[in-house]
């Protein structure tokens, strides 16, 4: 009976795995398609897609660099802000702390489109529309990051902070030397999730940036209307590569971080 259940489980999970992996395999195979018709097995094979993407035109690589620049800036800012805010919510007592934290949770639930118009109005007043800072600055202040790190810092025993204080460490030293190393898994989770979010953003660059040369790869992929199917699929692979590498680098920390903060 147990063996039968195992076989059924294996079959079901295999089917689910095939369904999940199928789009990736399809994209990879069609990257070598030089024709104008999609197909699981391309009828015309070649590397024209790779030539058009990497040699013939610099558009895609420039947009790759735009995406990388925006993502790295957002992650750096988010880490700094989330660590400081998470530590403050976790370790300090101040009036309105709970109300403020609940507001952050409510903000976390809202889709970004809700605050898009108000963000545009503020950025226009600051003369930032048309600059990369218009995309980076609003994304740095992430409620999810604050929530995640607050939960992670809550799990750290207070005795560590007290021991650090006894040794003469201030709050900033305690945060960077004691708390963050202990919450490494949560920090790694935040890096991955923030990178994926920043790498895939489409609405913010479309609304806040003016020049097509500033657009990241995600916007470009959403607007692609090329007849060379191979090129479309190669751009898709190009967009997936950094996320894949980052996940492979941090996969153990990600699983540990998500289970650690009970999300």
């Amino acid at each position: 009976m147990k063996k039968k259940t195992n076989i059924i489980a294996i079959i079901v999970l295999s089917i689910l795995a095939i369904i999940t992996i199928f789009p990736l395999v399809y994209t990879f195979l069609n990257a070598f398609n030089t024709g104008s018709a999609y197909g699981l097995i391309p009828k015309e094979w070649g590397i024209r897609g790779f030539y058009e993407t990497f040699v013939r035109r610099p558009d895609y690589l420039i947009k790759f660099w735009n995406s990388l620049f925006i993502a790295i800036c957002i992650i750096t800012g988010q880490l700094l802000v989330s660590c400081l805010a998470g530590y403050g919510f976790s370790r300090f007592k101040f009036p309105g702390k709970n109300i403020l934290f609940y507001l952050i949770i409510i903000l976390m639930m809202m889709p970004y489109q809700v605050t898009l118009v108000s963000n545009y109005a503020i950025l226009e007043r600051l003369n930032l529309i048309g600059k990369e800072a218009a995309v980076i600055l609003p994304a740095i202040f992430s409620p999810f990051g604050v929530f995640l790190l607050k939960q992670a810092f809550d799990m750290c025993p207070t005795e560590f902070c007290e021991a650090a204080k006894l040794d003469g460490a201030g709050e900033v030293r305690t945060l960077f030397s004691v708390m963050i190393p202990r919450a490494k898994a949560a920090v790694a989770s935040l890096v991955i999730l923030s990178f994926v979010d920043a790498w895939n953003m489409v609405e913010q660059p479309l609304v806040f940036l003016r020049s097509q040369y500033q657009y990241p790869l995600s916007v470009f992929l959403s607007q692609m209307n090329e007849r060379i199917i191979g090129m479309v699929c190669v751009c898709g692979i190009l967009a997936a590569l950094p996320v894949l590498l980052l996940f492979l680098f941090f996969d153990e920390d990600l699983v540990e971080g998500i289970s650690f903060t009970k999300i």
Partner: protein
Amino acid sequence: MTRKRIVILIISGILLISFVILTVVSEKVYIALLPEVTTHTLRTSTSKDGVNERWLPGECVRKNSKGEDAVYVVREREGRFRKEFYAEEVAVDVEDTRDDGYVLVLAMVLGHMDPIVIESNLPVSDQEAVKWMNKAEYDREPIR
């Protein structure tokens, strides 16, 4: 650091360096393969009736992707790394033809001294970057 992470770091480093090299190479290839265009300067003349007329060589008028008559005006814009020239498509109506091959076009957006593409080594499309071969001659022309 585990061996897996070291391998991933090495692969990432190799990919980044490759992408840097490919970005430089593709930019050079792109510039080398841009259409080379020669322009004719549009001059507005006044007819006996006092109407502004625009006569252009017939070679300037081309068929666009929709099969309509159009001319391509060379304009300047901010490119990826520097200013670049591009061709802007302007739909025109051909009103008359002269014996010398010149045609009379009607188009509100065409201005006096606009450089119109007369010759190109490759097909030109709207908003496409181009290499303007006789820019120096255009700059030297007196504005009347």
